[in-house]
């Protein structure tokens, strides 16, 4: 069976104002199978959001092909996106609508009748723990609740391919875990999930495989444990927390990323 999401040699360049071009994504290829979650792991500026904009068909590709359930998203976006649910990194909630109406309206874009959209919307609001906010204005929601609503909106069409661009940014640990549980349930439903993140813990916990993205290039791809084993072996990592205080721990994806790219997933915070 074909993978619900196939990205084949995706390259995306765009021109900058000074007549130079930036290659934001370079020859990236991967498949996401049914019931699989693939993580795109990289820091800000690694090319995750550009790749996702191409995968959704919003940005044209410079070269390569994106197939959603075998349909080229750039050749036939209307049919390809019928099977796609997308949660963008930015807040794209429609603030002209209240919480429930927002989901129902979004459902109509997928040709879902209003009554069915309302039924699904109520169920999603229950599932995301925001049923009590159904009649509230979007602007009255906290950042975390808005984020949950935006992920809920991506699920309204019960997509076979779910693409989430940093969905847990701004969520507290409890909300983050609740969202991970929902993603696990979506995988069990058979959805192919592409999850962009810069949280190592999220990638390790939620993703079956992880693609390490650096300056638009996939440095390696594989199950998190196997990536660690491949690049770090069994060696313990020693980190000096303070003078004379050394922490010894097993290696993780952050160490792999650092070894492969020389960069950290998170910029060190300014003193």
């Amino acid at each position, binding site marked *: 069976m074909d993978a619900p999401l196939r990205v084949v040699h995706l390259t995306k360049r*765009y021109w900058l104002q000074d007549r130079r071009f930036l290659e934001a994504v370079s020859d990236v290829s991967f498949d996401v199978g049914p019931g699989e979650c693939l993580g795109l792991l990289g820091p800000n500026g690694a090319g995750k959001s550009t790749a996702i904009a191409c995968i959704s068909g919003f940005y044209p590709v410079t070269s390569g092909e994106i197939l959603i359930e075998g349909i080229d998203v750039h050749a036939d976006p209307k049919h390809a996106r019928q099977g796609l649910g997308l949660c963008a990194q930015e807040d794209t909630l429609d603030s002209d609508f209240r919480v429930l109406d927002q989901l129902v309206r979004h459902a109509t874009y997928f040709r879902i009748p209003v009554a069915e959209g309302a039924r699904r919307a109520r169920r999603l609001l229950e599932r995301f723990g925001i049923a009590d906010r159904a009649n509230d204005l979007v602007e009255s929601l906290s950042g975390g609740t808005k984020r949950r609503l935006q992920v809920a909106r991506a699920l309204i069409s019960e997509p076979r391919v779910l693409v989430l661009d940093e969905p847990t940014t701004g969520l507290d640990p409890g909300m983050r875990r609740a969202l991970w549980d929902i993603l696990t349930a979506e995988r069990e439903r058979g959805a192919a999930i592409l999850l962009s993140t810069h949280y190592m813990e999220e990638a390790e916990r939620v993703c079956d495989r992880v693609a390490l993205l650096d300056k638009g290039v996939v440095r390696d791809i594989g199950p998190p444990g196997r990536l660690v084993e491949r690049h770090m072996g069994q060696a313990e990592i020693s980190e000096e927390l303070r003078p004379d205080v050394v922490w010894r721990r097993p290696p993780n994806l952050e160490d792999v990323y650092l070894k492969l790219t020389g960069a950290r997933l998170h910029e060190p915070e300014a003193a």
Partner: protein
Amino acid sequence: MKLGDSLWGVRCVWLRYFDVFRKGIFYYLITTFAEPFLYLLAFGFGVGSLIGSLQTNGGAVSYRSFVFSGILGQTVLFQGFYEASYGGFVRMYYQRIFQAVAVTPITLSEVLWGELVWDASKATLATAIIALIGVATGDFPTYAPLAVIPVVFPASLLFAGLGLAVAARSRTIEEISYPQYLLVFPMFLFCGVFFPVEQLPAPLQWVAWALPLTAVNSLMRTLTLGFAFQAWSIPIVAAWLGLLVAYSRRAMFRRLVK
């Protein structure tokens, strides 16, 4: 891509706008009609009572009726332009609605058509209702509200195209003020809303006729007051319509899509 599928997408976007309009109908009615009403009261009834009638290419006509007809053109201009410029900028930049809808089975092209057609629909509705009031006051014949629609809708689309182009080219919402004060207000003042363009010095008449509102007002007065038909108005409106709609869509694509 099939035409039927595309029309479905445009309709879906149009219905989204209509739903918002329906839910806030009181607010929209007040903000839509307050301005033309105030102009009508001040110039039509106030200044009109001082001037009486004026001689134009349609013969003698009361100043109130003349201004009333001009207010129809003004409504087309303001409704089309403001909804697409300020409203379009908010939807594109702050709410990111274009971006959210254009990753569903509805394409960005359909989103932009939906935006333009909605802006034109709203302006057409407002203008037709003002024409209806003109019928009630005895300034226009009874057929006027229906008769103006074939001119009002494309003219509204034209000014919506101008507004959307401005939204696409503005880096901040404040920048919309430049074309508002340097183009839209001069059109409002000098393109025949309040006085016949023939009153302007000859070179300025050419400038006024090069701008789309003069042609729109000319067509509107033919339909509502029986003024002589100035045939060149139609190609002027058609040319501006084609230019601005095509340019606005191109500018918005360039703004949103890398």
